C-alpha cells in the first residue's frame, strides 16, 4: 500500500456534525432536503452580488440613492432582497470626508440579504476586538490608508438592525453601465474596509 494516496482522516468536528445530523434525522427533528436548501441558498443565490446590484443602481439613479439612504430596508426590498438577518437594514453612505465601517463586536451580525454570510475575518476575534479601538490600523491591514481629515465612523451592530455601506462611486466610471459598475463593488467595500475598485483594477 505504500506510495498510495490516503484521504485525510476526518476531523473530530466533521465526525461530531455527522453524529448530530444522524440523530436529528432519526428523531424526525430535521429534514435533510431542508438543510440542503438552506446551504444552497447561501452558497449559490444570496451573496455580495445582491449588494453590488443595489450599490450600482444607487450610483446611476440619484432618486434611488436618496431612498436607499433614507429607508434602506424598503429600497433594498425593491430588488426582492429581504428576510433573514435583514429585517431592518440601514445603509451608510461614504463620502470623501467620511468612511463608515461595520462590525459586530459581540457576535457576527451581518446583512445576509445583501451580502450573504460573512467572511471568516469579519467573525474573527481580532477584527471584533480591534476595529472599534484602532480602525485606522485595521483598515491599513486591508490596504486602505485614510487621510487624517477623513472621519472614521465605526458601527457596532449590536441590535437587530443590520448595516451596509454604500461606497463612493469611483472616478472615471461616468460612461459605465450598471452591470459594468457592479464589478467594481466588492464585498469589502460594502462592509467599509475597502473602497470600490477602480476600472483599472478590474481590467
Amino acid at each position, binding site marked *: 500500500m505504500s506510495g498510495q494516496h490516503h484521504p485525510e482522516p476526518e476531523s473530530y468536528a466533521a465526525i461530531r456534525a455527522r453524529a448530530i445530523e444522524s440523530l*436529528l434525522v432519526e428523531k424526525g427533528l430535521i429534514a435533510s432536503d431542508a438543510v440542503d436548501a438552506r446551504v444552497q441558498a447561501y452558497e449559490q443565490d444570496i451573496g455580495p452580488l445582491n449588494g453590488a446590484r443595489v450599490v450600482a443602481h444607487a450610483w446611476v439613479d440619484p432618486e434611488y440613492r436618496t431612498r436607499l439612504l433614507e429607508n434602506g430596508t424598503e429600497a433594498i426590498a425593491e430588488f426582492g432582497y429581504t428576510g433573514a438577518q435583514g429585517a431592518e437594514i440601514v445603509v451608510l453612505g461614504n463620502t470623501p470626508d467620511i468612511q463608515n465601517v461595520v*462590525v459586530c463586536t459581540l457576535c457576527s451580525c451581518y446583512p445576509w440579504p445583501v451580502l450573504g454570510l460573512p467572511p471568516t475575518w469579519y467573525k474573527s476575534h481580532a477584527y471584533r476586538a480591534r476595529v472599534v479601538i484602532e480602525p485606522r490600523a485595521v483598515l491599513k491591514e486591508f490596504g486602505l490608508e485614510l487621510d487624517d481629515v477623513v472621519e*472614521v465612523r465605526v458601527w*457596532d451592530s449590536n441590535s437587530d*438592525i443590520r448595516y451596509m455601506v454604500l461606497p463612493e462611486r469611483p472616478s472615471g466610471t461616468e460612461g459605465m453601465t450598471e452591470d459594468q459598475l457592479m464589478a467594481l463593488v466588492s464585498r469589502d467595500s460594502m462592509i467599509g474596509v475597502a473602497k470600490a475598485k477602480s476600472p483599472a483594477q478590474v481590467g
Partner: protein
Amino acid sequence: MNGIHDMGGMHGFGPIEIEEDEPVFHQPWEGRVYGIVTTIRDAHDVYGPYGLRSYIESIPPDRYLVASYYEKWMLALENALLAKGLLSKEELEAKTSEYLDNPGAAVPRREDPEATQRVVENIRLRLPLAKDPDADIRPAFQVGDAVKARNINLRGHSRLPRYVRGKVGTIEKLYKIQDFQDHVPESEQGPQPVYSVRFKAEELWGAAAEGNQSLYIDMWESYLESA
C-alpha cells in the same frame, strides 16, 4: 453577561487574517451545521428567547477562544439540544463513537418537501423587530441629547458591550422600536425605543484613541440615562 464574546477594545489578538476568495463554507460539515441550526428552529423552539447566541456566549472562555466559528455554532447547538431534552449526552457520545469507528458511514436522510418549502420561504420572510411594531411608545430622548450608557452587568444575555458602559455619547437618530433582547424579568421585557448613539473615540479610549474617529452603536432606551 460579561463573557469572552464581549471583545470590543481587547488587545492581543494580532493581525486580521484575510483570505482571498474564500468559500462560503470551508468544509461540508460547516454547511451542515449552518443548515441544521437555521432550519430546526422553523419547527422547534430549540434555543429559547435569547437565541443560539446566548448558548454561544455560554461556551467557557478557554474553549471559545480556540473554537472555530462553526465549532462554536455546533457546541451551542449541542448544548441547546441537550438543555431542551431533544438529545441526551449518552446517545450523542454513542453516535459519535459509531462514526469515529466507521468514518465512512453514511448519514441517514429524511426528506420533507413541505418543510423544505417552508424553509425556502422563510429565508426571504419579512419580520418586524417588535411583536407589536405599532405599539405607542414615546421616546424619552431626542436627537442631540447627551446620554450616558448605564453600568449594567447582567449575568444573562445582553446587547450592551462593556466598552460603552459608563461612557457619554449623543443621540444621533431614533430608530423603530425593537423588542428588548436582554435576559431580564418579564416586567422589563417588550418593545422599547432604540437609538443610534455616537461616542467619540476619546471618550471610549482616552489618550489611546486614534484621531478623527467615532463609534456608533444601537442602544435600547433602558441602557441610557441623561448625561
